[in-house]
């Protein structure tokens, strides 16, 4: 019981955002004529917020299958980075590993990427519970949206900012703990420059390439800086 409480506390910041964004997704999908079964299936098997929102219009516009594949690839390419970080942490996770990989969303990554585990947990048990709780929030939201979303009249606009806020807190924590700030500065610089050049819809892939190039160029100073801290 105590363990579940710790997981609940640590995933709390994701809970609010996922339930609200999940509800928004279910509601949107429902409006296009795709009911409960569709939102449940998409939130269980795709489980990627941004793509699911775009997916609503891919379905309702009967997009070609190749368009669906390319759109998925472009929107979710950033997930390649999460795997690279988690290779070590998810090693030897056994039967839990396929699920850990499937459930590696932006938000879950932000909670597990340090590889730190609270006292009393085995490593993979903790990662598994965090991943599972996060998906439960997302699926719950989707179901609420499909079934009773249209009954919700309260104006929730702006609640999605909780995801932005979560990522800001992670950046702050990393900034305090890590003495070498080159990687985070590279992240901001590459992203902002890429956003200005390529625009909001197309900047992620050039951004990722830029980050890899810059991290490679600055490998020496970064590694030396990290050794000192």
């Amino acid at each position, binding site marked *: 019981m105590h363990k579940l409480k710790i997981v609940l*506390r640590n995933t*709390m*910041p994701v809970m*609010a955002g996922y339930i609200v964004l999940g509800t928004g997704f279910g509601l949107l999908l429902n409006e296009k004529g795709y009911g409960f079964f569709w939102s449940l299936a998409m939130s269980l098997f*795709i*489980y*990627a917020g941004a*793509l699911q929102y775009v*997916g609503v219009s*891919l*379905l309702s516009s009967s997009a070609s*299958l190749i368009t*669906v*594949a390319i759109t998925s690839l472009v929107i*979710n390419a*950033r*997930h*390649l*980075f*999460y*795997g*690279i*970080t988690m*290779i*070590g942490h*998810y090693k030897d996770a056994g039967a839990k590993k396929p699920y850990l*990989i499937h459930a*590696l969303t932006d938000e879950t*990554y932000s909670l597990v*990427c340090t590889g730190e585990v609270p006292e009393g947990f085995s490593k993979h048990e903790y990662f598994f519970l965090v991943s599972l709780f996060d998906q439960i929030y997302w699926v719950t939201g989707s179901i609420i949206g499909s079934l009773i979303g249209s009954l919700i009249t309260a104006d929730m606009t*702006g609640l999605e*900012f*909780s995801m*932005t*806020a*979560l*990522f*800001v*807190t992670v*950046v*702050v924590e*990393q900034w305090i703990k890590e003495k070498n700030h080159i*990687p*985070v*500065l*590279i*992240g*901001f610089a*590459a*992203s902002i420059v890429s*956003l200005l050049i390529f625009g*909001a819809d197309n*900047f*992620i892939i050039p*951004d990722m390439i830029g*980050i890899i190039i810059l*991290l490679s160029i600055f*490998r020496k100073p970064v*590694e030396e800086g*990290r050794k000192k801290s």
Partner: protein
Amino acid sequence: MNWLDMVRVGIMALVTFLLRLLPFIAFRNKQIPKYVEYLGNVLPFSVMAMLVVYCLKSVNFLSAGHGIPELISVVIVAALHIWKKNTVLSVVLGTVCYMILIRIM
């Protein structure tokens, strides 16, 4: 709504899973190269910055609000977090602040 829609959902699920899976199978049963290990260690720092920009990508500095609610709320979240180091507190207060600001600005 038909069987083709099921294929569409299947493609979205498959592509997403393959992207998440690829790094794990690329280095399965192998010593992870030092370079990849290095990337894995430093990417979280770059990626979190990327995700912050990703969340704010649609802020339009020319339209209503001019991005000021976003700017103020991000500063409040960061300041609160430096001060109290409580993620739930920072996220909740930052979000409430944002929701108020977009309604009054």
